[in-house]
């Protein structure tokens, strides 16, 4: 369900992201990569949240805020449509 991405994107193993539509490149940190890969495999924000809580040492409140902020950022960068 990668149609949430506005154009084709490639995320390398070390967090380097290439947006085939715009030609722009980005770097994601480890948490960013984790979330991004979930998005690529079609997960919705609620499921991603649960996975984050499973995977990382983080409380729900922080994870929710950070995830919101991250989505907003992806949206602003034109990578996804919220």
């Amino acid at each position, binding site marked *: 369900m990668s149609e949430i991405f506005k154009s084709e994107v490639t995320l390398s193993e070390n967090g380097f*992201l290439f947006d085939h539509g715009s030609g*722009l*490149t*980005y*770097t*994601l*940190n*480890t*948490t*960013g990569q*984790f*979330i*991004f890969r979930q998005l690529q495999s079609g997960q919705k924000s609620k499921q991603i949240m649960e996975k984050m809580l*499973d*995977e*990382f*040492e*983080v409380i729900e409140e*922080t994870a929710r805020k*950070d*995830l919101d*902020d*991250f989505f*907003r*950022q*992806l949206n*602003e*960068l*034109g*990578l996804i449509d919220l």
Partner: protein
Amino acid sequence: MKQEKKSYVKPTIVRHSVGVTNKYGRPPATVPMSRLNGFDVKELVNEYGSPLYVLSVEQLRQNYQDMFRAFSTRYPGARIAYSYKTNYLKAVCSILHSEGALAEVVSGFEYDIARNLAMPGEKIIFNGPYKTRDELARAFTDGAMVNIDNYDEIQVCEEVADELGRKFPVGVRVNMDLNNPPWHKFGFNVEAGHAYEAVKRIQSGGKLDVKGLHIHVGTYVDDVNIYSMAAQGLVNFYTVIKEQLGIKLKYWDMGGGYASHNTLNWAWQSAEYTCPTFDQYAEAICPILLKGPFQAAEAPRLFLEPGRALVDEPISMITTVVSQKRLPGGKRGVIVDAGMNVLSSVQWYNYNCQTVQDSGLTLEDTILYGGLCMNIDVLRQNAVLPPLRRGELLVIPHIGAYNLSQSWQFIYLRPAVIAIDNGKIHLIKASETREYVQEMESVPKEFNTYSIANKN
């Protein structure tokens, strides 16, 4: 068995662009500064509040000693007169006086601070374009060095000398065409002949005696050649007034303007590469002055009036992140609890910002906003910072010059100032209270009828 969870960092994505490393290929400082002058930054804020100004006494003393050594080893008897306006906190002035600094003041208010700190008149240099008659009378009586700025002041000084029934030594403030745009506001211009006319006028009045020359070439002057030209200009001018008007100087004063290690907003290179050392300034000035028209034993005393070069570096500000937001276009904005009312030099400087906690290494171009409800309150247009959360701290180093004396009380109360000396913390200025801010106000009874009405 359940696997251990991974440690968490806030998710980030950063668009690749120029600017995240500087042009020397060096990434901006990302090593968290958890301690400041030996103390845990978080604990300082817990104890004294945020924002907070923190003075390193050791660094202040060191700066003074470095500058004094650089000049006094090249010009025997050179003296430093600290420019009060840069930061006239009593504790700051006292530390510098205890190191041997004289006081350079530019108003009756500053003069009063110096006298109140037990500075004798002869250790005060009184500059500034506006000195009242009473202030001049006090300064002359105390034996302070008064540098005259304009013709009106010559006249007032003469009237004061008449009233006091004595002839007083004075200095004359001059300016020269050195920089672009030139600093013509203060004193009398040399090239146009105004300075010569002024000296002649003072001598012919017979009530004052020209014993000093003063020049202040600008502020944050990081080109030492300007000082060399000014020094040569003073030598030439002294030669002329000595030969033609019989002037014998007791002192000459090269003013302030020496740069600090902060980078100007419009600078191409970082100040770490461009800020001259005290030795370079001294070398640009002293050998030229020593070739003046006098025997070594009669050399006028040399005064220097540094401000920012002494006090910028020793003071840091700790500030707390209030919020992080996304701006249209994707850029990040971070709001902190200190505004330009307590950091007014953001108009000039691209202050460095250090994180306190380990916030990860993913850096992002960020607009750093001050906490005032005012659109112009931007501390930095482009700060490269890691992700930050509400409550996290930033240290902004090197902010000691002008930010405190030019701070204005607006919307919020102004923060406390602490001094750290030899592992000991001293509160040198408590944070303001509402009562303190409103102390001088009053509300006439007639304006206050509603409070009685509200009581009923």
